[in-house]
């Protein structure tokens, strides 16, 4: 029997909810509305006047080859970050799950990168990879590979992918480890008695049982890569060279605050907003169902 608390007065529950509602309204709904509004206007750079243009900002966006390219970059970036960080995290989690001694120390070390701010994570990788003073770039040069992400767009994209994935590995690792630990040991023992070798046990028992976790993390990672990697890119490549690392969020900033085209920037924000809504819907719709096998 679950006991429900019933408020005697009608206003108390609303009063208790008020702080949260206020935060949501001021910091989420108001800016969202402002973005939506400005996406229908063209504003001069100094904010003195603006003209109603309807959907012109949107129409121009989809005619802009740079914007379409950004879409593609974002997709490549997001999927690569998710794939890289998920697979590395899974390997680490499986390894950590086997370690019995010093397991806590091992776990703590693996969780550390998550505490690093995205911008700092970017800078760390930026220094490591810097063509003139980075140690990794130096090693690559020793191996005969010429690394210069200032010039080579693919290398720049690869660098931000690795940096973004590196930061997300910890988070994924934690969830995978928890997922692995919730699989009853006896199930794997039963499989061992059923003559399944370690690899077969992993792919036929462990991995299917981790699907809910994997699916949840996939969505979380995509959201992270699409929307939360702005500071990382801002601190390292600034979208360059030649727009090669300019993902959609970065483009919103660039168009608005560098190009001072507020209308277009707002329209891009609205498109991102729609993407978030769709992904959230997708997650709720499918993750919830997939959790119970």
């Amino acid at each position, binding site marked *: 029997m679950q006991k429900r608390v019933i408020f005697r007065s009608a206003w108390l529950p609303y009063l208790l909810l008020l702080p949260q509602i206020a935060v949501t309204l001021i910091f989420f709904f108001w800016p969202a509305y402002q973005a939506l509004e400005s996406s229908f206007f063209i504003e001069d750079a100094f904010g003195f006047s603006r003209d109603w243009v309807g959907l012109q900002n949107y129409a121009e966006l989809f005619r802009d080859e740079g914007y379409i390219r950004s879409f593609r970059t974002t997709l490549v970036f997001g999927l690569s970050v998710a794939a890289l960080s998920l697979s590395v995290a899974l390997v680490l989690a499986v390894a950590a799950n086997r370690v019995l001694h010093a397991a806590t120390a091992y776990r703590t070390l693996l969780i550390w990168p998550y505490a690093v701010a995205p911008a700092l994570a970017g800078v760390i990788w930026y220094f490591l990879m810097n063509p003139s003073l980075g140690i990794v770039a130096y090693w690559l040069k020793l191996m005969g590979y010429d690394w210069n992400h200032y010039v080579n767009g693919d290398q720049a994209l690869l660098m931000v992918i690795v940096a973004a994935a590196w930061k997300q590995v910890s988070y994924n690792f934690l969830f995978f480890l928890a997922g692995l630990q919730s699989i*009853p040991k*006896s*199930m794997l*023992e*039963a*499989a*061992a*008695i*059923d*003559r*399944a*070798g370690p690899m*077969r046990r992993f792919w*036929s*028992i462990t991995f*299917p*049982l981790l699907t809910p976790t994997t699916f949840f993390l996939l969505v979380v990672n995509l959201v992270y890569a699409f929307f939360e990697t702005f500071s990382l890119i801002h601190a390292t490549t600034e979208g360059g060279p030649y727009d090669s690392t300019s993902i959609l969020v970065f483009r919103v900033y660039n168009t608005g605050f560098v190009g001072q085209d507020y209308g277009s920037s707002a329209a891009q924000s609205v498109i991102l907003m729609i993407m978030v809504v769709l992904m959230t819907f997708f997650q709720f719709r499918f993750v919830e169902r997939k959790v*119970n*096998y």
Partner: protein
Amino acid sequence: MAEVEIKLLNKVYSGNTRAVTDVNAHIRDGEFIVLVGPSGCGKSTILRMIAGLESISTGELFIDGRKVNGVEPGKRDIAMVFQNYALYPHMSVRRNMEYGLKNEGLPRDQIATRIAEAARTLQLEDYLDRKPRNLSGGQRQRVAMGRAIVRDPKVFLFDEPLSNLDAKLRTQLRSELKALHRRLAATFVYVTHDQVEAMSLADRIIIMNAGRVEQIGTPLDVYERPATRFVADFIGNPSMNLMTGIVAEDRARVVLTSGPTIALSTEVEAAPGTSVDLGIRPEHLRVSDTGGADLTLSVHMVEHLGADTIVHGHIGQDAGALSLRVDGVQDFREHTQVPLAIAPGHLHLFDTQTGQRLNCA
């Protein structure tokens, strides 16, 4: 079908925790062996060592004459039924049973035949395409058994398979298990902490305590001639009355600490003055109507169970605890004194120091 030979088996965990100490046992072909004991006595560890899920610290283990100390669980030709069933939740009942056979590389038609046969035996035919989550506890347990049966192993291992089920279902599955053993004529090794399961299922029982074997014998053996005080206390419900005392000069009587002197039918093989524990089962006491009482019971509490009545109380005024079991419904008043006589030939004597049985009548 195979024998299992356990020689001087030891299990020591890091930090010198001894889980199993010097266990020897010879499990015969087709025998139903039950390992029983309180939790933490090492019975599950032994089973897991037979399965290969736990490494053997020292000692030797033979299955069907082959030494299997370092052999992988999958290559020992055994099957195991787990307490929590350990069914693969993302596979249907059929796929659960197929899994081991596929790994073995058995041809498809043979797999189908074996599964059909096992499903018929276990009345699982209607559930083959269901997922484990859509089955009741009893059905899940049957699937777990089915998964073992289709493998056609040399030895079946059971780790407390019935303990997650309710009492009624447990009784039902117990008799099914016994019937299954008869039909398969395979070697069964079964771990439980429930002495009723042990007594009703086993050909022979291995009673364990603190990592050591206390006694190996048939259910009636361990009931009628418990080898140690621990076995005497562990087997039987309500448990045996154990009273401390000292062997008298003539070695044919025991003077109880609580006062009374109990006559033995023969001399005990112990020096006079030895501290002993004298045991008598509650059902081997009877109310003395002739006046010649061996003991006096002060009644404390009466349990009417229908088929029998159990009377709990103390010896004399307020000495050691004592219980009495009589057939049918009988009337006992609390706070009254009941004179009791001991049925001849049912006394057990144990050395207080070693806990070992002392031979006498």
